[in-house]
């Protein structure tokens, strides 16, 4: 696999505070990489290092196989968490300026801006001043500015904060679009629900250190505990439940108020579901059989707690 960005033992210290401690990451091309961690874990420091706003004390960063250099700036797009615009400057003029700072030619920038303004339906904002816009409107413009120069790597730091649900969806779709068109994306957040929907890979940063990384599906596989959730339609289920309890490791069970539905969870060694399926065959109608896979949020909390408990 090709990696758009690789960090090797990146360490950064501010005075006595260690912000990043030997963080090594491999961010694959053409994917959405979730950079997760509680507030103050060091995510923003790492992102600033990638953007060459600050420099690591030790360690190396490689971009597209080369050592990260100032000229890479024009192939990276960054939407910071602390973001804003010049309040008294007109929207169009401001977008042009920021696009030119990223190295776009004025005419090209204008053409692309028109396209994006049409696409997000904000064409009539061109001559408005930013102070006349709402926070959500300004966020849309910031998003456009971030992606306008068609960077190879996009970095979004809490991109959905400040968006209403409708606009958040529009932006989410655009992010997925960009990924499908070949852009690599780093997505930093502490909101787990958006991680499940978007991320292909994740890394967990906690107290300045990387404590977990990999493909989201692999991590989930690793964190699953072979617990299955089963639903049965039953006539008189008491006897069946007793048999089940004897044969298998049931972790919980429950009848519905009518007594014709039995839901239970069961731990199956090595995820072997053949035995229980064979046992149940012909005994009851099954309407649910799923493996309970931990959510990113559960993994996050569990990992952080394990880590803290070990210290």
């Amino acid at each position, binding site marked *: 696999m090709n990696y758009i960005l690789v960090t090797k033992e990146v360490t950064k210290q501010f005075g006595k505070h260690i912000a990043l401690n030997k963080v090594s990451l491999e961010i694959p091309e053409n994917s959405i990489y979730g950079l997760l961690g509680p507030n103050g874990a060091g995510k923003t420091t790492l992102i600033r290092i990638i953007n060459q706003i600050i420099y690591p004390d030790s360690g190396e960063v490689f971009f597209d196989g080369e050592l990260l250099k100032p000229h890479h700036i024009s192939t990276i797009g*960054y939407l910071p968490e602390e973001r*804003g*615009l010049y309040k008294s400057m007109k929207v169009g003029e401001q977008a042009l300026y920021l696009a030119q*700072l990223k190295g776009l030619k004025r005419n090209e920038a204008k053409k692309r801006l028109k396209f994006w303004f049409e696409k997000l339906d904000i064409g009539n904002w061109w001559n408005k001043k930013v102070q006349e816009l709402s926070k959500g409107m300004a966020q849309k413009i910031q998003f456009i500015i971030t992606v306008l120069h068609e960077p190879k790597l996009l970095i979004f730091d809490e991109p959905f904060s400040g968006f209403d649900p409708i606009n958040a969806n529009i932006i989410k779709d655009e992010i997925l679009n960009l990924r499908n068109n070949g852009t690599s994306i780093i997505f930093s957040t502490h909101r787990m629900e958006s991680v499940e929907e978007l991320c292909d890979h994740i890394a967990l940063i906690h107290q300045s250190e990387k404590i977990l990384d990999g493909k989201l599906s692999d991590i989930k596989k690793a964190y699953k505990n072979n617990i299955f959730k089963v639903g049965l339609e039953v006539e008189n289920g008491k006897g069946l439940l007793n048999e089940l309890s004897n044969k298998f490791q049931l972790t919980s069970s429950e009848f519905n108020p009518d007594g014709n539905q039995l839901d239970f969870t069961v731990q199956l060694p090595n995820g072997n579901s053949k035995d229980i399926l064979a046992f149940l065959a012909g005994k009851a109608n099954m309407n649910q059989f799923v493996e309970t896979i931990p959510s990113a949020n559960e993994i996050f909390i569990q990992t952080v707690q394990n880590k803290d408990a070990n210290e």
Partner: protein
Amino acid sequence: MNKLPLIIRREYLAKVRNKSFVVMTFLSPILMVGMVVLIAYLTKINDNEKRIIGVFNESIYFSNDFHTTENTSYVQFRDISLQAAKDSTASVGYYGLLYIPREKSLEEVVQKTYFFTKEAPSASTIDQLEDIFEERLRARRLQDLGISAEQFAAMDKEYEIKTATFEGRQNLKGINEIKAIIGGGFGYLIMMFIIIYGGFVMRSVIEEKTSRIIEVIISSVKPFQLMMGKIIGTSLAGITQFAIWIVCGTLLLMLTFSILDIDPSALNRGTEIASGMNSNMTPTIPTANQTMQAYAQELYEIPWFMLICFFVIYFALGYLIYSSIYAAIGAAVDNESDTQQFIFPVILPLMLAIYVGFFSVFSNPHGPIAVGFSLFPLTSPIVMLMRLPGGIGEGGVPIWEIVTSIVLLIITFVGIVWLAAKIYRVGILMYGKKPTYKELFKWIKY
């Protein structure tokens, strides 16, 4: 691709298009000229006010000393009581009543003379009256001493010592002061520019911090580039403003002169006449025209071109040093009210330079204090420029002092900009921390 011109352009346009900047640019010359016109007008009104003063003279002296002048006329009272004179003065609305009693001698008369008014009289009126009495008393005393008025006039003569350089070139009185004022003007201009536009740079940095755009920008350009672009862009806006002021001011002043019917060349003639009278009484010094010629020559011989070149050098270096300090201050704080503790130490050397300049350079342009302050980098742009009109090299500022001060200035410039850039780089990403000097010192080490 170099992004500095882009940043300079934006900073310049942002400043120049700012409403308050536009208003200030066009309003201040109008305000200034308006003030001049108003003062001239008010003075004229003041002069035009006529005062009538009643004179109740019972003495044998002062019978014809009260001559009607441009704004004062005198009305004589006779053959009534003092009370009646007072009452009638008040009832007809005269300004006041001068009462001169009948006494034996002039001295006694003067002792007992009173000036009655409704309210406390104006200083100019009192001066006018006192002059009349003083004149009379002086004439009396001169008479007692047996000196004629002509003899007295000849006695009261000022003396000027003539000075020359060893090479024999005649020195002109006050030329050093004139030169120092020219240099002081340049120095003052630098100080004003630094304080006004340094403040603009600082506010612009704070604005970028509070609007949170800063991180977007420095992910595209180096903080140093942004800082320099800001400083240069703002200073270009400042130069534009000064240029507009000079043009507008000149135009409006000319307009004012033509409206008020003041002939500027008359001012020159006035001084010529004054010095002409002077020369009549002291025939040994050169004639008026020659003196004027010598002054003009002396001013002409000020190395203007050199002076302007040095002005540009000192201005550029001084402004860059101070405005990078201002930029660092802006980066260190979250809002303008936190800037006070840092600004005072910045303005201090500027004020010191101006005061030292005016007190020390005027009296002794090449004394140790003047030399010291014109070498010290934080004051040299102002103090050195005050010394430079006196000449360079022989008899003026030695070449080595100029070279040393510029070298020191450049070293300081590099050092300060380096330090300021470090503080700036860290500061722009710091929020919610009230910075202390200790904190700033830590940032430098990051």
